[in-house]
C-alpha cells in the first residue's frame, strides 16, 4: 500500500467512527429529549388525578370518613416533589389505594351518583374526571418507563460510556408505583 491509500483508509475509518459516534449521540439526545417530554406528561397527569381526587373529596358527595381518606392521600400526592422519585412513588401508590378504597366497586360509584340528587351532573363530572385521570396516569407512566428503558439500554453501551456521549445528563430511573385504576370506575 502506498502512503496515499494508507491515509485514505485511516481517513475513512476515522470518518466512519465519527459518523457512528455522532449518530449514537444524536439518538441519545433525542431519547433524553423524549424523556423530558414523557416526564412532564406523567407529572401533568398525576397533578390532574390528584386535583380530581381532591375535588371529589371536598365536593360533599362522599361521606365524611371517605372524604378524609381521599383528601389526605390527594394532598400528600399534590404536595410531593416530582423530582423525589422514591417519595413520589409512595404518595402516588397511597393515592391509588385511597381511590381504590373509596370507589372499591361499581356500587360505590353508583351510590355517589344516587345520593347526589340535584348535583348528579356534578357527581358525573367529578367521577369521570377522576376516571380519566387514573387511566391517563397509567398510560403516561408506561410511556415514560418505555423511554427510560430504551435510554438505559443505549447508555449501557460501551461506546456511550467510553466517549461520555451522555454528558452530564443524570441516569434516568423508571417511575414505579401502583396505578391500578379503581374497580368502581373501571368501565366508563
Amino acid at each position: 500500500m502506498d502512503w496515499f491509500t494508507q491515509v485514505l483508509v485511516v481517513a475513512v475509518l476515522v470518518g466512519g467512527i465519527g459518523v457512528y459516534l455522532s449518530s449514537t449521540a444524536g439518538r441519545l439526545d433525542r431519547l433524553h429529549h423524549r424523556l423530558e417530554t414523557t416526564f412532564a406528561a406523567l407529572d401533568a397527569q398525576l397533578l390532574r388525578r390528584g386535583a380530581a381526587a381532591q375535588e371529589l373529596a371536598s365536593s360533599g358527595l362522599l361521606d365524611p370518613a371517605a372524604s378524609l381518606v381521599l383528601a389526605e392521600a390527594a394532598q400528600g400526592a399534590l404536595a410531593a416533589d416530582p423530582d423525589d422519585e422514591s417519595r413520589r412513588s409512595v404518595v402516588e401508590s397511597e393515592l391509588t389505594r385511597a381511590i381504590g378504597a373509596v370507589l372499591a366497586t361499581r356500587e360505590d360509584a353508583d351510590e355517589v351518583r344516587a345520593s347526589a340528587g340535584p348535583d348528579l351532573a356534578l357527581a358525573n363530572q367529578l367521577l369521570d374526571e377522576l376516571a380519566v385521570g387514573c387511566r391517563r396516569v397509567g398510560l403516561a407512566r408506561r410511556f415514560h418507563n418505555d423511554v427510560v428503558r430504551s435510554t438505559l439500554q443505549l447508555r449501557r453501551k460501551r461506546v456511550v460510556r467510553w466517549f461520555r456521549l451522555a454528558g452530564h445528563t443524570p441516569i434516568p430511573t423508571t417511575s414505579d408505583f401502583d396505578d391500578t385504576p379503581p374497580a368502581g370506575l373501571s368501565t366508563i
Partner: protein
Amino acid sequence: MKIGIVCPYDWSAPGGVQVHVRDLAVALERLGHQVSVLAPCDDEADLQHFVVSSGRPVSVSYNGSKAKVTFGPVSTRRVRRWLREGDFDVLHVHEPASPSVSILSCWSARGPIVATWHSSMERSRALAAMYSIVQTALEKVSARIAVSEAARQTLVEHMGGDAVLIPNGVDCSAFGGVEPLPGWPGEGGALFFIGRIDESRKGLSVLLEALPTIAKAHPGVRLLVAGPGDIEEFRSSLPADIVARVDFLGLVSEEVKRRAFVSADIYVAPNTGGESFGIVLLEAMASGTPVLASDIEAFRSVLDDGRVGALFSNEDPQDLARAAIALLDDTSERARLSRDGVSRAREFDWEIVARHVLEVYEAVTVSGEKVSEDFRGQLVGRLSRGDRDDRND
C-alpha cells in the same frame, strides 16, 4: 341506660382504643347498663355479645400511620340500622377525627353524643382542608372527653373548645393473685420489661445499658422481656454476659402478661417519650409489682410524682441503675410501693372510670331526648333508598 359505643378501628386487631372500648363496655354492663358496640370486624364469628360489625375493615394511611377502618355506603347503612335498632339514650364515639365509623355515626345521628379523643397527633392537613365537611358531623357532639392531657391539648388546638379529662382505666380484678412464671422471680433480683423490643422510644436499650452496672451490685440479677420484635436479631446484637441474664418471651397473651408482672421484683418502664398515658404502669401496680419508670410527664402523673413508684432521669442508664440497685437493696421500700401501687391502681379501676363517664352521659341526657337518625347534610333521596337497601343487606 341504653348506650351505643362506636370504635373506629378493626376490632380484631390489638390496639389501645379497642381495649379501652372493650373494657368500658364491660364495666358499663357490670354497672347494669345496656351496651352495644359498633366496630369494623374482619371476622364476624366469635364476637363478644355486645359487638355489632360495621363491615370489613380496609387499611388506609392516615396521619402518617396505617389504620384499619370502614367507610362508604355499606358502612353508612349499617351505622343507620344500628342506630335505629339500638334506640340509644346516648351515643359515645371514640376518636371521631379518624376516617371511620365514628365520624359516620356523628354524621348520621342527632341527640346526646359524647366523643372521646385518645391520641395526640400532629395537625392533619386533610382535617383542616375538609373542615367544613367534618365540622357538620363534629359540631353535633354535646360533650367531649380526652383520655390524657396530651389528647386534650390536641383537641384544643385542632378544634377549639375544651374537654373533660377522664383517664384510661385498668381492670384491677384481673391483675394480681396469679402464679409467677416457672423459675421466677428467684433470689438474685428480677426485673421485667414489656413493649416492642426494637422500638427505641420503648427504651429497652436504656435498660440493657444499665444492666451491667446493676449486675455489679447484684450479681444474680435477671431481666424478663415481653413484647414483639425480632428476638434472634436483637439477642445477637448483645454482649454474651448480658444475654445470659435476659429471657425473651416474645409477644405474650394477656394471661402470660399477668403472670409476668408478678414474676419480677421490679417492673421497669424506660420509655423515652411518646406515651400519652401509662396504662402498663397501672397494670403493674394492680399486680402489686413495684414500678421504676422514666420521669416523662405521663409517667410522673400516673406515679404521683414518685410517691407510688420510683422515677429515674429519662434516657439516663446510670440513673436507672442507681434507682434499680436502691430498690433491690430495700425490701421494705418495695413492700411499701407494692401496697401503695395497688391502692393507686384502684383509683383508675374501670368501675370508677366508668362512673365518671356515666356522669358525662347523665349530663348530656338531662333533656330526655334520645339518639335518632339525622339526615341533615345528606340528601333526602338517600332516606328511601337507604331503607330499601337495608333489607337486602
